[in-house]
């Protein structure tokens, strides 16, 4: 297990280094000049040139790359071009929205998706299965921004139970902050829960055909007991894969929901930064996301190995 973990950890570090190089190179290719963007269409070329020098854009690319890596090792992500504030701080503030939101959405999708999936698998082919799966199908099929808006219309505009969006910082009013995350959390959770339900059902239906279930049944267990004791545990493998993927998605992929609910999340920060050519901010934030996602996947893999000990030897050999 230790060897396995070590190997994975080395891979983790290697991934990060290559990722840093790719991010830097990709961003340097982007057309558009940050200085010109800041100063707009009426600025003189001289003003733009002066700003380029101030932003350090006149320094050769390779030197900027090493400065960046070196800075990050010391925890310094640089200063945002457009916002003139430390990138680390900007990102940290956004994580206060994005992380709770992602966790909330995960929680809701697991709490709803897994039981529904198990239920549907148990009642396979029955009316309940059909109804639940149809619902799940619809849940996957609705574009997020559309669903988010329908939620707002119902709960915020008509019923006025919850705000239409926005975010009150935690330190100011935790209850208000939480209220602000409910609708976006639901909007994010719906498709995730639907996917989870489907995957759980598929996985369970798969294992019910396996020999060990039949053996268990032969030993006198009811189908329910057999599925619960043996099936769910085995079905957890694909479900874990999906959960890892979902968390990775939720941490960065919530731009659309953030837009609909005007939340100050990480996704929107990066999106704006890309369009404003705030390269320092984009690469810092992307790098942090890469670290977060890679770490999540490392954890998923380690959990995999714990759930199914056979995998350790497989990868460790």
């Amino acid at each position, binding site marked *: 297990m230790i060897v396995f973990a070590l190997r994975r950890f080395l891979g983790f570090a290697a991934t990060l280094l290559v990722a840093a190089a790719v991010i830097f190179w990709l*961003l340097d290719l982007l057309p558009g000049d940050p200085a010109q963007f800041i100063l707009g269409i009426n600025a003189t070329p001289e003003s733009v040139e002066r700003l380029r020098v101030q932003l350090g854009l006149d320094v050769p690319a390779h030197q900027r790359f090493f400065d960046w890596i070196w800075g990050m090792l010391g925890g310094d992500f640089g200063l945002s071009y457009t916002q003139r504030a430390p990138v680390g701080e900007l990102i940290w503030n956004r994580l206060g929205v994005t992380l709770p939101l992602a966790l909330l959405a995960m929680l809701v999708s697991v709490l709803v998706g897994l039981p529904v999936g198990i239920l549907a698998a148990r009642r396979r082919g029955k009316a309940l299965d059909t109804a639940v799966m149809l619902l799940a199908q619809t849940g996957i099929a609705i574009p997020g921004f*559309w669903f988010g808006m329908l939620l707002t219309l119902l709960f915020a505009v008509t019923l006025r139970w919850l705000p239409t969006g926005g975010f009150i910082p935690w330190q100011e009013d935790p209850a208000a902050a939480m209220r602000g995350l409910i609708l976006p959390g639901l909007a994010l959770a719906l498709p995730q829960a639907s996917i989870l339900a489907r995957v759980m059902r598929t996985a369970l239906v798969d294992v019910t055909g396996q020999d060990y279930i039949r053996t268990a049944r032969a030993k006198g267990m009811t189908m329910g007991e057999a599925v619960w004791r043996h099936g769910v545990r085995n079905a957890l493998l694909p479900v874990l894969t999906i959960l890892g993927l979902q968390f990775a998605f939720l941490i960065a992929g919530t731009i659309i929901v953030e837009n609909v609910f005007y939340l100050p999340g990480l996704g929107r920060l990066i999106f704006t930064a890309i369009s404003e050519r705030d390269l320092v901010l984009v690469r810092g934030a992307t790098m942090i*996301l*890469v670290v977060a996602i890679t770490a999540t996947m490392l954890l998923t893999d380690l959990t995999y190995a714990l759930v199914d000990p056979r995998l350790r030897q497989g990868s460790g050999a």
Partner: protein
Amino acid sequence: MRRFLAHPSLMVGLCGALAFLLLGLTSLVWTPFPIDQIDIGRRFLGPSAEHWLGTDNLGRDMASLVMAGTWTSFLVAAIAVFIGMGIGVPLGLAAVIWGGAVEWLVLRLSDFIFAFPAVIVAILITTLAGPGSINAIVAIGIFNIPVFARVARGGALSIAKLDFVAAARLTGLGNAMIAWRHLLPNIMSLLIVQGTIQMSLGILSEAGLSYIALGTQAPDTSLGLMLREAQGMFLVHPWLTLVPGSAIVLIVMALNLAGDGLRDAIDPRLRQSRSNVLA
């Protein structure tokens, strides 16, 4: 064929998906009106004999737009899935069957692609190459690769340890053949389910990219772009969002139903287990 017919959801899904596909294909040769024909004077018309689904904010014929938009959405998602499957599945299977360094490499590669937040990279790619459907395909397709690689590996891992694979190895079957004959068929159901999920996600991703103005660009159209353009007017002209919105929901549902049905229909183990139940 009989066993396909025995699955009502499969038939509904397949027929639905095919109907939309046909609609999209038709738009290549014929639409009731040219989709770039703008006439401000006739905008916001309701459905009528002339304009079956009414007209949009620029006076374009909605039925024509839906047809053309369906085609774009299909095309984007399908190509993206093919990119993902074509590269991802062989990688995943190779990882399981060869193990060791190959597995390490495949995992690193898949981790590596995965390590990048998909939406961010999609935005970067579309920023780099200019917004549009082709770039959306590439951006969505790249991220389908590790999805399929991991699902293929995850599914094949548990099967590779089963007795019949070891037995096949004893009979002298090569690695590639084992992967082809024993692993692939056994993870097919997982792949198909994942394929339909990715297909529907592809259509939705295109819509999402369109929402942040990086997907399909006017004067081309896609269902996502139509929905996005009409979103602001939702309370004034709800019809304009309902049409493309329902089209997306229906297509995605049809695809998923078809996928689920196919899965039930072609998985030999499942058929067997069902006959057991019946017996």
